[in-house]
């Protein structure tokens, strides 16, 4: 009786998460302080899905046997974790000191305006999401914007439409 009900929950949770993550959790459970691996497990889940959904966190809670309030408490504490699906293209704007002084703030304002979203959110058409980086170590190129893997240097607000256009930006769809 006992195992049956719990096993059902575990099977359900196992189906939600990718197999390598499940295996990683199983490995962690054999280590000394299994709960201390929660953050690295969440990292792996986010790596795979691009974000943490409710069912992902609940699955982690069940497989690691950590109460779900603790899982969401940890996940919501760190800026690194996000809870909405990421866009197809991830626009990352550097807000380090140099970039900020060279006008990254204005670029961000314009970017948010063009896509109709705030930092951490995803545009309505699912194409773009905005992240803010602290310093990408390319201060000579300030302000720096990275879309997926491509780096754009010396970005000015009025260049944004053109840059986003390379990735299929359509104002009507992004901001209906």
């Amino acid at each position, binding site marked *: 009786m006992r195992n049956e009900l*719990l096993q059902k929950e575990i099977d359900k949770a196992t189906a939600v998460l990718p197999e390598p993550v499940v295996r990683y959790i199983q490995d962690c459970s054999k280590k000394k302080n299994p709960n201390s691996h929660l953050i690295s497990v969440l990292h792996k889940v986010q790596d795979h899905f691009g974000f943490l959904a409710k069912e992902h966190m609940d699955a982690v809670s069940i497989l690691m046997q950590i109460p779900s*309030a603790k899982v969401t408490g940890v996940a919501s504490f760190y800026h690194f974790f996000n809870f909405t699906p990421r866009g197809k293209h991830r626009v990352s704007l550097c807000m380090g000191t140099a970039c900020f002084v060279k006008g990254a703030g204005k670029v961000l304002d314009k970017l948010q305006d063009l896509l109709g979203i705030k930092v951490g959110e995803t545009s309505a058409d699912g194409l773009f999401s905005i992240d803010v980086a602290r310093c990408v170590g390319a201060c000579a190129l300030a302000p720096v914007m990275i879309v997926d893997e491509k780096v754009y240097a010396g970005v000015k607000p009025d260049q944004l439409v053109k840059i986003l256009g390379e990735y299929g930006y359509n104002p009507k769809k992004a901001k209906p």
Partner: protein
Amino acid sequence: MTIEKKVTLWIDGVKVTVPEKTTILQAADSININVPSLCYHPDLSVIGACRVCVVEVDGQRNPVASCSYPVAEGMKVKTSSPLLRRLRRDVVELILDNHPQDCQACVRNGTCELQKLAYDLGVRERLFEGERKRFPVDTSSPVHRNPEKCILCGRCVRVCDEVQGVHNLSVQHRGFNNVVAPAHDCKMIDSVCIHCGQCVNVCPTAAFTEQDATESVFEALSNPDLHVVVHTAPAIRATIGEGFGFRPGTPVTGKLVTALRMAGFHKVFDTNFGADLTIIEESTEFLSRVQKKERLPLITSCSPGWVNFMERFYPELIPLTSTCKSPMSMLSTLLKTYYAQQMGVDPEKIFVVAVMPCTAKKFEAKRPEHMAPWGKPYTDAVLTTRELVWMLKCLGVDFHNLEDGAFDSPLGVSSGAADIFGATGGVMEAALRTAYEKITGKELESLEFETVRGVEGVKETSIQIDGLTINIGVANGLQNAKNLLDRVASGEKQYHIIEIMACPGGCVAGGGQPYPPRGMHVLDPELGRLRAKALYSIDGSKSLRKSHENPAIELLYENFLGAPNSHLCHELLHTHYEPKTPRGVK
């Protein structure tokens, strides 16, 4: 054996010797020096979050938090100085800056620890002002959550984790958005919350409160079409006096009855009657299982917090849990069936109010299993002890000077076995008194089963009944229950019967009980002991002390129910359970 090392230090010039690893605050407490504190709770772990309890230590550059700072040999501590007074006041002022300024309209007005602290520390004007956090109030369940009043002391999180093992609450998000909430910031009703109300008890402010039922009761009392009856749980008579300034442990049964009559209830019955009935039904169920050697151990089902916990955390125990409804639900059901029939009253016109020490009873009353066939609950409203205290104050009842009244017949007649239901081990003792005599057919020589009495978290004993050894487990506080049940699951222990009460100490320390008077605190074992003593003294003073000898119960079976566990009994007095989601992680 290791010898406990002692440390001698001076606090405010007073020499004190305490075991090492004692904190400064505990050492000060031991010589009656009261250091103001807020997040600290003597029965929970220490987090040192609020910094109200700062003290000066000679040789330390900055004041330290006395709740977490361990004593050291020769230490010289100052608990009061102009600097400390200013620091403490500033801390409280900063908390107040982020707190609604509505003390007059707050349910904790007069019992709020923050309010008291602000007064004690001399906050007389507001020096800081700024943006205040804004959160919606969660009124989805019997336990209301108002994060705007939360000061992030974390006591609720700790009681939920450490005492109840439910782990429903955690601090979510960070910085200004910090909030104590269930997983995913979901509503309490959608969480693994079991509605035990211990968070309400330990909360220093009104961030956690019970759902208010007083309005609906006042409304019913002024509705001339309704026949309004009330019944009060065993634990209420031992605690309600505290709400009116009586010392903890003062039984006030008679005054309580008179007060309820004055409040306008048409009939005042006793949940004790339901408790006696529970014992008859449960002991019959138990004996039949023992004889058939099946579905053992039997686990009691009177505590609604435990039932909620069981359905979410231990659904595999559903077959073992007694199918008996709780005394409250049994009596409420009878009021709208048996009593209605006897009185010739339309059951739909009867409004049943139950006074309970418990917030989970509010949830129980609304469970679909406890609905009458016409779609309304058998128990229309559940008041906590605190709510009833307030109602009586609102009505201007002079509780101190009331004459003693007596419960109405026949659903107010009860044995002493029912009174002790309110204390941990009480249900077990009551059941043993009846089971023993049912099995042996002989009269019990001594009615007191001392081994199941007392406020310890887990009690175990074995008794011999006619050559039969009955192994007994009693647990209060769900973390203790977990420990006991896990030992059963591992096969380490084998019991025949287990009593579980969700709240530490049993119903006398339930989530709806009065906030303790000055000098005592929630979870204080001494408080539990005093309150339980009141119940045992009532039991001891009664001549009727065994449920099966209650003449009103005998009459009920004869005239209405037939035999114990009869078909009608099952229909009216028994219930069923279901696994619930989200499932809790143990």
